[in-house]
Structures are given as structure tokens and as C-alpha cells.
């Protein structure tokens, strides 16, 4: 029995680390969805760019990890602004237009291609700044980087929430999300806020990339699966509820590991089957029915 709990503990620790990355990226979907009704289906590729650009800064140029993190976040943030101006705004003129689905997917394919040409198709080692010695937490082993991922990702999710609720800029963003026209009447520059939403969303993905690269390696195709799983987390948790999304990300990460204890062949199938059941019962997601925070 004690071995069972040891296994369970290991699965929880491992699941928490990957789940917090899903949550981090999924919050990015939330921010742009509530402000514009659009999602960036290239979130996974922004994550990849964050990782590879971070790798170039950290390994090739030998900059400190913190500087590489900031550089990756800045670059993906700027790319988010470019995405909004280049691929979202031009196709969003019609209120019901779904062209942004294709335009964001198009950007993601272009980014993948560009990355293969710049960094090659192979996995590249991203050395962890915290070393490679395993830490013991009870009976479970964890790499320092994984611990850092949990702290940094969850910390960022909470920091973004605080920012949205407390700061003037954050409140303006929430106001746009709540009622675009009223926000405009109140003197908020709506188009600028929309750009800002994409900057924030993309920067979160970029941060996720440089955080997980020491665990997953950095490579051109690294973003596809986390992008999809984070999307699942966002829908599963409730696309308009940041707390629901956080829970959604963690649940998906944990489910995969826990189901892997039972049968490694079926873990992903069963995870997504579970999501289907939850969506059938609660079509707007686990916590989707609640109202978004009032300003």
C-alpha cells in the first residue's frame, strides 16, 4: 500500500508540473477571447519561439537565464502585437467572421517553417539553470526545473489576475472584455487594449516555452501538443473563467499521469474521453457558467 501512495505522489508531482504549463498557455487563450472573441491558434508556436529564442540568448550568446527569459517574453510579446495587426484585425472587420481561425493557423505554420530553417528540425538540449540533480520531495523525485515551472507558472497566472483586477491598465482590459462600447464611451482606447491583450497572451506562451524547454528540449515542433492540450484545458475549465482554466490545466496534467499509472496505452484517450463527458454535462466548461469578474 505504501508503494501505491509513493506512486500516486510521484504522479501528482509530475502531473502538477506539466499541468501548470497548460494552465499558463490556456490563460493566454482566455485573455484574447474575452477581449476580442478570437483565439490565437498559434499559441503553441509562440511557445516554441520563446523556447528557441531563449536558447539562442542563453546558450549561444551566454546571457544569464533571467535575461533570456525577459528577452523571450519581449520578443513573443512584440510578435503578439504583430499578429493582432497583421492577422487578426484585418480579418475581424465582420463581426461573425471566423477567418481569424485560418489566419492564426497560417501564422503558426509560417512560424514552424521559419523555425526549422533557423534552428533545424532536431531537438536541442536546453540546459537547466538549476542543474540536473534530482530533488526528493517525500518519496517523489523532481527536477529543480520542474519545481521552478510550478512556482513560476502558477505565480504568473496569479500575477496576471492581480494585474487585471487591481491595475488601471488591467481594469481597462477587463472593461473592454465586459462591454466594448461602454468602455469606448468611457474613454478607453479599445483597439490599443486589443493589441495589448494579444501582447499579454503571446508573452505568456513565450514564457511557457522558455520554462519547459529544459524538460522537453527546444525544437521547431515542440509547441503543437502543448498548444492543443492548453486549448483543451481552456475549453474544459470554461473559456471565460480564469480560475476554471487554471483548474482545467492542472486537471489535464494530473489526469494524464494518474491514468498512466493504470494503463499507459490509454492515458490520452481516456483523458480526452473524460473531457467529452464533462463538456456533455456542462457545455460551457467546468466553471463556465459563472459571470466574469465585474469591474
Amino acid at each position, binding site marked *: 500500500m505504501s508503494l501505491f501512495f509513493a506512486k500516486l505522489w510521484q504522479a501528482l508531482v509530475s502531473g502538477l508540473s506539466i499541468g501548470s504549463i497548460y494552465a499558463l498557455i490556456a490563460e493566454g487563450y482566455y485573455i484574447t477571447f474575452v477581449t476580442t472573441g478570437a483565439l490565437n491558434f498559434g499559441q503553441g508556436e509562440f511557445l516554441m519561439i520563446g523556447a528557441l529564442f531563449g536558447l539562442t540568448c542563453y546558450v549561444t550568446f551566454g546571457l544569464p537565464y533571467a535575461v533570456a527569459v525577459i528577452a523571450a517574453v519581449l520578443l513573443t510579446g512584440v510578435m503578439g502585437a504583430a499578429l493582432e495587426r497583421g492577422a487578426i484585425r484585418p480579418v475581424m472587420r465582420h463581426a461573425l467572421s471566423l477567418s481569424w481561425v485560418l489566419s492564426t493557423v497560417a501564422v503558426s505554420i509560417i512560424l514552424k517553417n521559419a523555425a526549422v530553417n533557423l534552428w533545424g*528540425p532536431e531537438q536541442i538540449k536546453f540546459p537547466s539553470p538549476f542543474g540536473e540533480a534530482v530533488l526528493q520531495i517525500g518519496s517523489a*523525485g523532481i527536477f529543480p526545473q520542474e519545481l521552478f515551472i510550478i512556482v513560476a507558472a502558477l505565480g504568473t497566472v496569479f500575477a496576471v489576475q492581480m494585474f487585471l483586477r487591481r491595475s488601471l491598465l488591467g481594469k481597462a482590459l477587463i472593461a473592454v472584455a465586459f462591454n466594448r462600447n461602454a468602455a469606448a464611451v468611457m474613454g478607453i482606447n479599445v483597439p490599443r487594449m486589443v493589441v495589448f491583450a494579444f501582447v499579454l497572451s503571446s508573452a505568456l506562451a513565450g514564457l511557457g516555452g522558455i520554462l519547459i524547454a529544459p524538460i522537453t528540449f527546444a525544437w521547431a515542433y515542440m509547441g503543437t501538443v502543448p498548444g492543443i492540450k492548453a486549448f483543451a484545458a481552456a475549453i474544459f475549465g470554461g473559456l471565460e473563467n480564469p480560475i476554471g482554466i487554471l483548474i482545467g490545466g492542472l486537471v489535464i496534467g494530473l489526469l494524464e499521469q494518474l491514468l498512466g499509472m493504470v494503463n499507459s496505452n490509454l492515458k490520452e484517450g481516456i483523458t480526452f474521453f473524460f473531457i467529452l463527458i464533462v463538456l456533455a454535462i456542462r457545455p460551457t466548461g467546468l466553471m463556465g457558467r459563472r459571470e466574469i469578474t465585474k469591474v
Partner: protein
Amino acid sequence: MSIEARTTGLRLGAIGIGLLLAAVLGSTAVAADLKIGFTLSLTGGTDDYGKGARMGAELALKEYNDKGGYQSKKVEAVIYDDETKPAKGVENVTRLITRDKVFAMVGPVNSGVALAIIDIAQKNQVPLMDTVATAEQIIERYKNAPKNYIFRVSLNDGIQTSFMIDYIKGRQYQRVGLMHDSTGWGQSGRDTALRLVKEANLDLVAGPEVFDQNDTDMTTQLTKMQEAKAEFIIAYSLAPAGVQIAKSMQKIGLKTPWTGTWALIAPNFLKLGGKATVEGVMAVTSYTPDHSANAKVLHEKVDRIFKEQGGDFHPVATAQTYDGVRLLLRALDKVGPDPQKIRDALEEIDDFTEAVTKMKPHPFSHANHESLGRDTGFLAVWRDGKLERAAAE
């Protein structure tokens, strides 16, 4: 586009396809040009092997041509990238046979590509030397044909697994665990291992456990190995997932010895994992840079000539292709650039003493197109960033 234009287009297309087919089927065996054709993965997941193979081929041809070539004519390499895609491999081989009129072909790297192209080589009666791909069916498909045009200088999957079984037997382990990735290659490896473990009367106590080749955490699979008290683990995994297995073993403190196929001798495995992580991991090989005097010479040459290309791809792919191309050139010397005669001559070569792999001086015969057999490989182990032969008992 009007309907007329469209039918005209269709008709033209049909004529084009017809011409292409005629060209493929009608190409006769007389090839005047001195060309060897290659289809290799130079991009895609297994490009390390393809680049390694290309080095071996270029080196073999350079040495041959420097010595005067064939009747003072140079032999040329025509190298196409198949991008690790079967359809692209088919296109390459068709082009090599019909347009480039090569007298022999070498490649590919990927077994999926190989199984798609061997039919074309066989039908057109142009010998194909597989120097990397490992699926057993590549040689077996035409084993009973009057003339098999497919030859191999590589360790097939069954032979690779048999080295693992030999090692397990030698160490007197009884309890075996099995893991594999979810690709077609991983699944066929699993089937081979299940068969051989059973034949050897070993107990499969854990697995087969599956993982995705991009999974980053294998602790759940490995905990099962730990619980079942497996004494040895066989893992069909490419280099990136192999690193994740090693790391996850560190996490749960599992020290069970384990081996992969020759995928884990790739330099990429060391690069991704680092010295400390790969320490003690085993892998199948037919070659280490110092297992024979010939191998040592080759290794020094590769180091010197290809240094500026980052000459560190896959040493075994280089060695096997070096031998495979030299066998074709030996056959060329004997019978001239006629694909069918070259095929026959390959079966008769019995004085190939300069091999860098462990093949015999008479590597092929009518019944046997596998030059590397049960006695030509072994398990190597990573020690301090280098591969050593693993002690068998």
C-alpha cells in the same frame, strides 16, 4: 476553367502518366553512365543517420576515384533527400532509375521508406544496398524470388534484439521489462522482443509499456518496472525519448540496467542527455571506432575530412555505408556497370577483407542478403561520454 480545357488537361495528364509509366517499366538494364544513386533522409527525424551515411558514401567514392575509378572513368554519386517520407523515396528511386540511369542504389535510412521503394528496385532489376534501415521485411520480401535485388549492410531489428537476449542470458537475468514508443517501428520492435523473450524462456514481468516519442515523463511506466522487480529493461526508443527514460529513472531512483537499439548510440543521445544522464545506458552496435584496425583508420579519416561539416552524425551509418558502397564498387570492377550483373557479382564477392564493420569476406550469397548477422554486433555501454563494449557476464 472550361470543361473542354479541363478534359484536355486531364488527357494531357493521363498521357504524361502513361509516358512516365512506360519510362519506368521500359527502362532496360543497360546503363552507360557510371552513377550510384542515393535516397537518404537528409531532413526529417532521422537526418543524423542520413548525413552519416552520406559521409561514408562520399569517402568511399572519393577513394575509389582517386585510385583511377573504373577504367579511368569516375563514378559519380547522385544523392536525393527523401525527407523521411515514403512517397518522396518512391519519387527519388524512380528518378534515379529512369533519368539518372544509375547502375546501383544505396539507401534509405527509414524502414517505412525502404518498404515503399524496394518493389521498384526489384521490378526494374537495379540492386539496392540498404545500409541503414532495419525492418526485417526489407530483405525477406523478395527472399524467395529467383533473384533478390535487395542487399543489406545493417543490423535488422530481429538481430538487434537477439544481442539484447544474449546479454540477458549471459548475465543470468530472468525478469525482463519491455517498453516501446508508439510509432510503427516501436510496435514492430515490441513484437520481435515478445517473440524472442518467449523463445529464450525469460519472464516478461512488466510491460509492454508504451510511450509517445515526445513524452517527457516516463515515471509511471518505469514505476511498473520497479514494482515488478525487473532485472533488465529493453526499450525501443529514439534518442530524445531515451533521454527522458534515463531522467525519469533518476527521478524514481531506479537503477535497473537497460538497453535501447542502436538508436541510442547516436551522438544526439549524448548531446541531449549529457554525460551524466546517459552514463550506464546500453545500446546495440555493430561498430565502435576502435573495434578493429580498419575501423580505426576510417574513424580517423572521417574526423579529418569531415570536421568542418560538423563530422559527428552517426558513426555506424557512416561505417555501414562506407562498406556497402565499396562492395558495389568491387562488383563494378568485376563485371562493369550492368545492374543485373552487379547483383550477381555481389553474391560472389568472397575477398572483401577491408570491411570496417564486422562482416565476413564473403558477405552475401544467393540465400543470404544480410551481411551483418548474429556474430557481428554486441551491446555497448555509455561510460563517461564514450561507448564501450558491455561485459557479457
